[in-house]
């Protein structure tokens, strides 16, 4: 059974205490400069001087660096190799492999891009590790986000592990009926219909019943909703958000100014 349905790790830390919207702003306050500021080493410095320390500030360094080695580094690495090899242009040829040419310019370009992606995925990871999805949604709903919209986001986040569990049951059931899903590629493709069919139909039934279930709990009621969770928005949060907005604006301006 899936006990953990979110990435959230419950800890007491300065990052955990921030208002969800502040943290969401922080995510974009990191991404925008990393992509926009024309100074070459911006993403690298952000990663080393801001993102990594934030992981320790949030006391989620263990989880974060696991994600880095398992997910972020391989993805960024792949991107780096592809871009370095396939982006045309550049004059300083470093190596030639068959029809591929590796130039210093493409190498530098790929390196910066890979780190940008690294910063982007890292900020989101830290955000998810330190923010409970319900808290985010309660906060956004109180700020005027429609309830239905918030529901769709949360339900989608939760449905992924559900779908995985369901898919593996279906696979088990069909293999038990002699369906060969293991041998050749052609067989695997043939096996898709008996696997996808029940998944889709099952989901349709589920959606109908779930709609009844949330309706029975007054989901579409027009009364003003209340929230079980208390969400704090301290002056520090407001200050930080303004600061981050300034940073984002500044990076935008720097982009326009220097290009």
């Amino acid at each position, binding site marked *: 059974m899936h006990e953990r349905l979110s990435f959230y790790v419950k800890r007491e830390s300065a990052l955990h205490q921030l208002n969800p919207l502040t943290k969401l702003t922080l995510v974009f306050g990191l991404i925008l400069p990393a992509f926009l500021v024309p100074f070459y080493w911006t993403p690298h410095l952000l990663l080393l001087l801001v993102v990594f320390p934030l992981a320790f500030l949030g006391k989620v360094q263990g989880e974060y660096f696991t994600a880095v080695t398992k997910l972020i580094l391989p993805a960024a690495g792949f991107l780096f190799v592809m871009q370095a090899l396939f982006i045309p242009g550049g004059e300083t040829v470093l190596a030639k492999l068959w029809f591929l040419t590796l130039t210093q310019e493409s190498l530098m370009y790929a390196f910066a891009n890979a780190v940008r992606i690294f910063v982007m995925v890292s900020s989101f990871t830290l955000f998810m590790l330190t923010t409970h999805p319900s808290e985010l949604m309660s906060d956004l709903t109180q700020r005027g986000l429609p309830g239905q919209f918030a529901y769709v986001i949360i339900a989608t986040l939760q449905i992924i592990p559900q779908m995985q569990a369901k898919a593996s049951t279906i696979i088990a059931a069909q293999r038990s009926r002699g369906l060969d899903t293991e041998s050749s590629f052609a067989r695997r493709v043939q096996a898709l219909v008996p696997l996808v069919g029940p998944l889709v139909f099952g989901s349709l039934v589920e959606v109908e019943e779930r709609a009844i279930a*949330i309706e029975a709990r007054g*989901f579409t009621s027009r009364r003003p909703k209340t929230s079980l*969770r208390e969400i704090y928005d301290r002056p520090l949060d407001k200050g930080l958000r303004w600061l981050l907005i300034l940073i984002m604006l500044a990076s935008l301006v720097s982009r326009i100014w220097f290009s």
Partner: protein
Amino acid sequence: MPIVKLQQVTYHYPFTEKPALQDINLEVEEGEFVAVIGPNGAGKSTLCYTLAGFIPHFYKGELKGIVEVDGVLVQDSDLSDWVLKVGLVFQNPFNQISGAKYTVFEEVAFGLENSGVPRSEIIRRVEEVLQMTGIADLADRSPYSLSGGQQQRVALASILVMQPKVLVLDEPTSQMDPIGTREVFGVIRQMAEQGMTVVMAEHKVEWIAQFADRVIALWEGKIYLEGKPHEVLTDERLVEKGFGVSRYTTTARLALPRGLWQKERPLPVTLEEAVAGFSALRNARRKQG
């Protein structure tokens, strides 16, 4: 004054020719516990959806007749208002999890948040209902990680917490073991005694006999039999139509021609009644012998 009133209710699901409910007349008094029995497809779920307002507000199709709860016609009410009066717990526990919440506590609080109940009252009511339904120890678990029986208790708690006047339950104990079933019937009985009106579709006749005030037997969308639990549950006509019958009733019926059950004695539905009946016969025989 009955709190639930159905008059001449006939309902067709969209694109079907055969009515799912036909000429249903039903009145339920405040605080009454009514059990609905019948084979699958007899219309139990449809009746539940009708009482809970999902017919006609969610399922379209054609609804004829009068459906009235607490003096208000279902057609004149919004579904979101209706559900505050009539709570619905249905069979599949998994699909009753809202999907919006990460813990059992939050899950049970969901309905109260939607109805704008203040935070401190939410916490008080949720704690109370978790105790009552015996799931206080699950408060911090993810609803998805629970067994079917536990999820059914969460589904029940999520509706009870909203304190509806009428509670409609469609086989709420289908995935529970005997101990869970006994506890849940106990909770529901207790709610009825506190004035909540209960309509419950259920297969488990031994429990119905002990807890319900009245039984309605549905057959092909119509009310086939209606009355006191014992009269209905031991009625011979149930067997012909393939209704579920208590094993104690079956045993006593088989005992009759062999002279092992006293003719004047009503047939038993529960274990206690069977024990009493068979003991009485044995004692009578031993006196003769």
